[in-house]
């Protein structure tokens, strides 16, 4: 490919992107979400990723509590996430087959149901970013809001079951910088606000290295430190912990 062709291609690509936002000041939600896939690495980069182990830190600044987090994921929907905080102990959550569960030293094991289960299963979809069409039957572009001095497109994504998620995508970069929703938890519906920043390339995909999440009265930060791309994850990582298994068995026995 000669240089002229490359420039032409880039120009066409640029025009394609520009044309998305050029004529209409409010582009379609579909184009905003597709652009997010594109600017964070492209569909191919996501599809090449069959499994990952993400490592990071979690901190509750107001409480002065810090811990580590590790997220294991494998195509298409295997998911196990653990947070370890010395003063609280281990907190685990995961999706094993059709069972969405969590387990902690604080609250013990439990199996999620209803909307909470549906949300967990969506969360467990490894390539949720690319698969937004499957996960959110309805998406709507609802205007422009300024966040930290930058114009952002506001997109409302409504799943088949559960509360809508509102994503804010920078007009300039296409990156998602904020997300709000109402999370269904066993303690009740809790308003959640997530601020994403410091996007970094982790194995070919841009991901926010810093996430600040406000959930009800709590605020915590998650710092993504490294991502192992396509590692071999032992299958037992995704099996139900013994405490959750015992609970499932007890429920089935009744």
């Amino acid at each position, binding site marked *: 490919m000669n240089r002229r062709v490359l420039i032409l291609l880039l120009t066409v690509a640029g025009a394609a992107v520009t044309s998305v936002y050029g004529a209409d000041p409010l582009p379609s939600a579909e184009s905003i979400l597709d652009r997010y896939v594109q600017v964070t690495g492209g569909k191919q980069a996501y599809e090449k990723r069959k499994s990952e182990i993400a490592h990071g830190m979690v901190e509750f600044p107001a409480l002065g509590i810090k811990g580590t987090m590790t997220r294991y994921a494998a195509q298409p929907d295997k998911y196990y996430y653990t947070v370890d905080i010395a003063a609280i102990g281990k907190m685990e959550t995961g999706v094993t087959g059709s069972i969405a569960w969590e387990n902690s030293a*604080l609250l013990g094991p439990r199996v999620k149901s209803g909307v909470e289960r549906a949300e967990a299963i969506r969360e467990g979809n490894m390539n949720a970013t690319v698969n937004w069409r499957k996960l959110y039957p309805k998406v709507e572009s609802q205007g422009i809001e300024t966040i930290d001095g930058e114009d952002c497109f506001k997109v409302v994504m409504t799943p088949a079951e559960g509360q809508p998620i509102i994503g804010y995508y920078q007009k300039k970069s296409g990156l998602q910088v904020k997300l709000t929703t109402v999370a269904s938890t066993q303690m009740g519906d809790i308003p959640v606000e997530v601020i994403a920043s410091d996007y970094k390339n982790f194995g070919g995909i841009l991901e926010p290295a810093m996430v600040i999440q406000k959930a009800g*009265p709590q605020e915590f930060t998650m710092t993504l430190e490294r991502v192992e791309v396509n590692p071999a994850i032992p299958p037992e990582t995704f099996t139900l912990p013994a405490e959750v298994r015992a609970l499932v068995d007890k429920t089935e026995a009744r």
Partner: protein
Amino acid sequence: MLSRRWSLLFIAALSTFGQARTQLDLDSFEKVWTTIRDKHWQTKPGGLDWQAIHDEYRPQVEMAASHDEARAVIQEMLGRLKQSHFAIIPAVVYTVLDDEGPTGSGTTGIDARVLGGHAVVTSVDPDSPAAQQGVRPGWEIERTHGIDLEPLIKQGRSNPAIHELQLTRAVLARLSGPIGGKLDAVFLDGSGKTVNLSLDLTAPRGMSSAFGNLPEQHVWFENKRMGQTAYVRFNLFLDLPHVMASFQQTVENCRTCDGLIIDLRGNPGGIGGMAMGMAGFLVDKSNQRLGTMYLRDSTLNFVVNPRAKVFSGPVAVLMDGCSASTSEIFAGGLKDLGRARVFGTPTAAAALPSAFERLPNGDGFQYAVANYISEGGQPLEGLGVTPDVVVELTRSALLAGHDAVVDAAIDWIRKKP
């Protein structure tokens, strides 16, 4: 001329003092008003137009002729909320409670309560310096570090702003001191004889435990069998991994017990979630909750997750005026669910994340940031948990070697079919 100049200076000084006093009271008013505006769980605190409240009361604070008048105005403003745990604590109260004598975490192993207007030893840790020197439950504590306790207790009991929890803490503070030091104390023993002792102050019982920004605290957990009845007691809902594991082990070892006694007397609370976690070992029915906490932007249900193995026998929870916060959420919720019977005396009524702050004028300000309603529909804040069976400790029973509250719980368990 000289005298006139002095008098002018004096008047100027007085005038400055007056302005300073007014400004401090105004700053205090603004802090109280702003805190409620920003932190109250209702966006319209108490259903009131809070800005209008500001405009009504600020001129009154400006016009107040004295600090006491300014405080009365602020108190009146808080009264308009018609909600508990919003209070101004006069600065003088702090002079009563803060003067704790020698500071330090050293302990003699004595636990005490104010019974009938006297500081009385309610328990003595085994092998502690107090136990080694023969101190017994039921002894009165008359004097520590060379100072009589009676005036403190008298002032504390006569001031409605001082709750039992605060007064007990003030008394216990006078039984402590630097680790490695001595506590010179004067007791009245069971026969009415005065006993002078110099007790070693040693490290507090239990393991030091850190939880975020909280100062490190010693946490202990004890369990024992009283015949076929299991008994557990722990001093704080902290050191989560250790305390939860110990509680789980106690329950799992209790399959053949005729009952379980959970003694939360003196337990001031800690991590709220532990109440839910522990209840999961005692409640077998799904979708049960201990209560509900109402915050400004959300409502949190204190849900119980039944464990795979649950203790199904009778449960007695022991409480007193020093049982607060998570202890109250736990006991109140289990009582409302009909899963536990509560014995002892009414609790501290401090279930909420309510905070105490000092105001610019020296007064204290207590405010709650959430409302907590126990499952039975009663707010715990300001009301606390009323025991099913009110049993008070008495000096005579303690001297006779009886803990009347434990005895009542065992008696109930033994009579259960």
